C-alpha cells in the first residue's frame, strides 16, 4: 500500500527542493504522513499510538530538564528532587509532569496493546511490528523502574532492593549478578549512579525502537476495526488531514485528563512512603511498586518458589512475543469472533484482578486469588488462544471496509 502510490511530490520552495534532492526527508514526510493511505474506519482506539508518541517526547523533554537539576548521590538525591519542587522556577511543574507522565505513558500503551490484541493487529504480516512493540514495552518498564529509584525515597530504595534481588534466584551465578547490578554488596551509591545513567539512556533507545516500529507499520499499513485489508482507494483516506486532525483531537482529550492529575492530584498515583528519605534500616510495612507493575508483581508473588515466581513474571511478558503464533484463528478482529471477544474481555478483568492482588499484602485470600488469576492469564494465551482459533466459527466478514462503513451508516 505504502508503495502503491505514484510520482514523487514536487516542492515549490527552492530550499526544500534543494535539500530534498539530496536528503529526501520532505518526500518521506509527504509520503508517510500526508498521502499515506490509511483505512477510513478507525475508531478512537487508533489514537493511542499518537498519544504514546506525544508522551514519549514529553517524558524526554521534562526528563532532560529534571536531569539538569538532579544530583545522583545517596546523600543528596532526595533533597535535590525536593529542591526541584521548591526552589527551581516552575520545577514543581516539570517534576509533576514527569512523575505523572510515566503513569499516563503506561495508560496509553496499555490501551494501545489492548487495541492490538482485540483487533488482531499482531497477525501476519504484522508480527515484527508487534514484537517491536513488546520490546518497547519492556524498555519502558526498565526505564520507569530505574526512574522511580532516582528520588531515593523509601519505596525507591526498597523497590530497587526487592527487584534486583530477584536475580539472585538464578542458579549458581545469581548472587554474582546481583552484586554486579548493585556495584557492591547492597543497593547503594553505585546502584543509584548506574540507574541514573541508564534512565537517561534507555528513552533514546526507545525512540530508536519506536522508529523501527513505525517503519514496520508503514510497510503494510495499519490494521483497522474490521481486521480486513483495504482493497482499494475507496477503503482509505490520506493520513493528513484526516487522521492528523483526529489524532490531534484525541491527544487533547488525553492531555486534559493527564493535566487533571498533574495539577489537582499530583501525588494520587504515587506512594506516600516515597516522601520518606531512603533508610536501609527501616523496611516499609508493604513494599509495592508503581501501579503499572502491579499485575506482574502479583504474578511474581503468586508462585511460592522464588525462581518460579521470577520465571512466571518474565514469562507473562514472553508469551506476548509469541502471541502471533499462539493465535490459530484466520480472522483478525474480535468483532467477528463471537466467543474470543468474551475471552478477551475476561483477560482484561483478569489483569485488573491481578493488579489489585499486587497491591495487597500477600496473605489470606489474596494468595489463592492471585494464583488463580495467574493461572488464567497463562491459560488464556497457551490454551484458549490455540484451541479456540480452531473450533470457533467466525461471523461472516464484510466484503470491504467501505461496505462495512456504509452499512453502519444505514443502520
Amino acid at each position, binding site marked *: 500500500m505504502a508503495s502503491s502510490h505514484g510520482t514523487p511530490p514536487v516542492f515549490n520552495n527552492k530550499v526544500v527542493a534543494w535539500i530534498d534532492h539530496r536528503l529526501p526527508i520532505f518526500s518521506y514526510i509527504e509520503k508517510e504522513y500526508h498521502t499515506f493511505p490509511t483505512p477510513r474506519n478507525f475508531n478512537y482506539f487508533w489514537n493511542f499510538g499518537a498519544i504514546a508518541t506525544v508522551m514519549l517526547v514529553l517524558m524526554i523533554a521534562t526528563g532532560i530538564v529534571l536531569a539538569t537539576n538532579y544530583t545522583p548521590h545517596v546523600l543528596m538525591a532526595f533533597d535535590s528532587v525536593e529542591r526541584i519542587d521548591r526552589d527551581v522556577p516552575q520545577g*514543581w511543574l516539570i517534576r509533576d509532569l514527569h512523575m505523572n507522565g510515566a503513569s499516563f505513558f503506561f495508560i496509553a500503551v496499555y490501551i494501545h496493546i489492548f487495541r492490538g490484541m482485540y483487533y488482531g493487529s499482531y497477525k501476519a504480516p504484522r508480527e515484527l511490528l508487534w514484537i517491536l512493540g513488546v520490546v518497547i514495552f519492556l524498555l519502558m518498564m526498565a526505564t520507569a523502574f530505574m526512574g522511580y529509584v532516582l528520588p531515593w525515597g523509601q519505596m525507591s530504595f526498597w523497590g530497587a532492593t526487592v527487584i534486583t534481588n530477584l536475580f539472585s534466584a538464578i542458579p549458581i551465578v545469581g548472587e554474582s549478578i546481583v552484586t554486579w547490578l548493585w556495584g557492591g554488596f547492597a543497593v547503594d551509591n553505585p546502584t543509584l549512579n548506574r540507574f541514573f545513567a541508564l534512565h537517561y539512556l534507555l528513552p533514546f533507545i526507545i525512540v530508536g525502537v519506536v522508529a523501527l516500529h513505525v517503519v514496520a507499520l508503514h510497510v503494510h499499513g495499519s490494521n483497522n476495526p474490521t481486521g480486513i485489508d483495504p482493497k482499494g482507494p475507496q477503503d482509505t483516506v490520506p493520513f493528513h488531514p484526516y487522521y492528523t486532525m483526529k489524532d*490531534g483531537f484525541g491527544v487533547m482529550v488525553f492531555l486534559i485528563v493527564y493535566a487533571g492529575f498533574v495539577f489537582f492530584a499530583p501525588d494520587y498515583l504515587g506512594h506516600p512512603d516515597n516522601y520518606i528519605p531512603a533508610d536501609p534500616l527501616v523496611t516499609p510495612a508493604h513494599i509495592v511498586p508503581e501501579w503499572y507493575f502491579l499485575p506482574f508483581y502479583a504474578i511474581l508473588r503468586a508462585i511460592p518458589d522464588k525462581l518460579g515466581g521470577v520465571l512466571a513474571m518474565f514469562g507473562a511478558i514472553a508469551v506476548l512475543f509469541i502471541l502471533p503464533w499462539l493465535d490459530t484463528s484466520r480472522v483478525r478482529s474480535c468483532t467477528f469472533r463471537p466467543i474470543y471477544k468474551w475471552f478477551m474481555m475476561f483477560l482484561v478483568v483478569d489483569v485488573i484482578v491481578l493488579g489489585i492482588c499486587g497491591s495487597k499484602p500477600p496473605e489470606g485470600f489474596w494468595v489463592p486469588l492471585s494464583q488463580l488469576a495467574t493461572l488464567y492469564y497463562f491459560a488464556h494465551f497457551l490454551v484458549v488462544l490455540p484451541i479456540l482459533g480452531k473450533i470457533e466459527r467466525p461471523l461472516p466478514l464484510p466484503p470491504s471496509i467501505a461496505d462495512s462503513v456504509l452499512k453502519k451508516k444505514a443502520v
Partner: protein
Amino acid sequence: MRKPFARNLLVSGAIALASFTVGTVAIAAGGTEHPPHRHWHFQGPFGTFDRAAAQRGFQVYQEVCAACHSLSLVAYRNLTELGLTENQVKGLIKDITVTDLNDEGAPVDRPARPSDRFKKPFPNQAAAAAANNGKAPPDLSVIVKAREYGPDYIYGILTGYVPYDKLTPAQIKEFDVKKDDNFNKYFPGHKIAMAPPLSDDKVTYADGTKATLDQEAADVTEFLAWASEPHMEDRKRTGVRVILFLIALAGMMYAVKRMVWADKH
C-alpha cells in the same frame, strides 16, 4: 576508601537482619484506626492555605516542635509566602543563632539570616535519637505528603493520645503498654516515642485566638501542609488555566476534525 570484604559482608548482614526485624515489627503493627476526616482550607481544586492559621501554626512549630523536629527544606525567607513581611520575618528570627564558619574556617555563632534554612535542633541523627529514647524525630518538611491520610493523620497524631489510665486492660495487654509509654490511637503499633507535644494553652497566640489543643493541632497541621508543598496554590491556579486552554483547543480540534471528515461520513 576501600573497605575490607569481610567488613562489608558483616555490615550488609547486619543491615539485612535489622531490616528484617524492623520489617516484621512494622507489619505486625497493622490494624490501627483511620484518623477521622476533617475539612481543610487547602482542600479541593480551589482550596488555598488559611494564612492566619498557618502563621499561628508556625508559632506552634517554632515554640514547641522545633525543640525536636527539623524542617530542613524550608528557609526563613519562605515565610513571606505566608503573608509575613520581610521585616516581620527578621523580627521573628532575631533571637536565633546558627553555627557557621568564619573566614579562618573556625566555627562561630552568628544571628540567623532570612536565607538560612530552619535551624536544626540536633547536629545529626544519632544525637537526635539519643535525646529521644532512641527514636530520632523525623524531619517535618514533607511530613504531610509522607503519610497516608496526610493532614488528617498529622492532626490525628497530635490529638490522638490516650493516657495510660484510660486504656482498657485488653489494649494494655495486646500492645504491651507500660506505664510511661505514650499510647496514640492513630500511630501504627500505637506506642510512639513522642510524648504528647500539645495541650490547651501550650502557646499564647499573638492574634488572640484561644489556644485549645484542637486549635493548636489544626494550626500546626495547616503550617506543615504549606511547608510540604509551598507551591500548591500556584499549582492549582496554573491547572485551572491549563485545563481551560486545553478544553478550548480540544473543542477547536473537534470542529476541524468534523469539517475535514464531513465528506467521508
